[in-house]
């Protein structure tokens, strides 16, 4: 019974491309996880199993690395991840208002995913744009100097 492959051939190639400039394959572990995530949105147990022989590590060893980091998802996430900065400058500038507004609009709290799989809502430490607080990222797009009124328009851009 051939199991379905969760890491695509394309992703696999991309991972193998990471090995140059590195003394051993394990050193590409984090980047490989990122590649998996780029294609699959998150890193499933099956993905770990498939990654293991590519990196010459055990799935346990990869998971040990994966779970250390904030941005490697070991649980499914929606199509778009909304990262709201909750660090100090955004706190001073009132990110909590944005948080409440987003919670109302998305009907989920931090850590949640909308039932239609459209958004996952997460807090994120300082986005390094404190001079334009409060700030958030949706996927890779940065939004700054946020006002609750802008949220509808922003969210509407993401299907």
């Amino acid at each position, binding site marked *: 019974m051939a199991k379905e492959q969760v890491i695509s051939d394309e992703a696999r190639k991309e991972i193998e491309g990471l090995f140059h*400039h590195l*003394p051993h394959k*394990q*050193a*590409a*572990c*984090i*980047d490989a*996880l*990122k590649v998996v995530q780029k294609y699959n949105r998150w890193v499933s147990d099956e993905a770990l199993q498939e990654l293991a022989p590519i990196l010459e590590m055990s799935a346990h060893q990869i998971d*040990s*690395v994966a779970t*250390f*980091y*904030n*941005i*490697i998802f070991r649980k499914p996430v929606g199509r778009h991840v909304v*990262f709201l900065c*909750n*660090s*100090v*400058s955004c*706190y*001073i*500038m*009132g990110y*909590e208002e944005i948080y409440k507004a987003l919670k109302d609009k998305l009907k989920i709290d931090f850590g949640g995913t909308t039932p239609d799989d459209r958004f996952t809502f997460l807090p*994120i*430490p*300082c*986005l*390094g*744009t*404190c*001079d*334009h*607080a409060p700030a958030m*990222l949706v996927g*890779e797009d*940065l939004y700054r100097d946020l006002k609750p009124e802008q949220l509808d328009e922003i969210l509407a851009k993401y299907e």
Partner: protein
Amino acid sequence: MERPLTQHMKSDGTALSLKEYEASGGYEGLRKALKMTPLEVMNLVKDSKLRGRGGAGFPTGMKWSFVPMGEDAPKQKYIVANGDEMEPGTFKDRLLVELNPHMLIEGMIISAYAIGASMSYIFLRWAYHLGAKRIQVALDEAYQAGYLGKNIMGSGFDIDMDLHTSVGRYICGEETALLNALEGKRANPRNKPPFPQVSGLFGKPTIVNNVETYCNVPHILAKGAEWYLSLSQSEGGGGTKLYGASGRVKNPGVYELPLGITLRELVEVHAGGMQDGYKLRGILPGGASTDFLTPDHLDIKMDFEEVAKAGSRMGTGLIIVLDDKTCPIGMCLNLEQFFAQESCGWCTPCREGLPWTAKLLQGIEDGQGRPEDIDILSGQTRYMAPGNTFCALAPGAMEPLQSALKYFREDFEEHIHTHHCKYQHH
């Protein structure tokens, strides 16, 4: 006033292309460096009194000089740029990599030449997607132009450079944890000694410097140590510094200014003073892990020595301003929650002490504090003092708290006695 780091940046927010960078004098420093011996480059940087811009202000030339050189030295050595910049309230390296990535690349190539490294990595924080794209473009351009790769500019010197983007965690900014992250491992810090200069990335001699630190190097090479020293208003170091401000000031942002301007000038002139209706209560002078200063400190110089004398640290030089309508306990709580979450979990005081600290602050903020909590909190600041923990994360976390306990004690007491927080937002 000269602003070598920022004066050529374009106002439209796009990055300098290689052509534009070269037109502004880019890669001149490298050209000069390659005509010098590595030791001469190292000495020039020493003479310039360039100090690390990552927070600790360690003299850069001296750091380099600990790298083993000569015949017996390991063949493989590394140069690493620390662009993790996850310290809350800090956003200077973002500016550099987004608007002028070639400056960083050139600085790193020169540094690699000085210590004999043949491989280099830019470690960039995950959230800087735009920066990452621009660095990648610049790297491709530099390879094409022969600034990177084998036998660069006919000098016989080989240097490769890769971009590595992080996957989030503040501790990755700690240089030894960063090396572990670059090795694809869990980013726990390493014990020092051995220092990275001796055993760093993959156990090989490695220099880790901040992005801004490297960005100074091409200018020092191009224009000399004298010139560089003349930029500064500080005894302790040369050059300009990227300062910045966030919080309720009129003009939050990054400003390149001579090292050693006063805090007052920074707050009142460049940051434009407080927004209308807000009063200044406190300042974290260099990121989340520095002690509060108060309006009484406005006349100190923003350099490594003076800020230390005032009981804080210059850190990254980007100030976070606390106003009179924001709860200082709420601010401390926000900071300590951040640090507790970002602890790597390796050493006991940080892993266990920070969550406890955050819970105590949460209790006080929620009106459930007890009088003895203040003692426990100050006990925690002693327990996590520098040297007691494995790395500087937890001691850094204690800095705002210990100074808040000193300067805003009445707020703590009032919260505890009235069982509530009087500030409108928390």
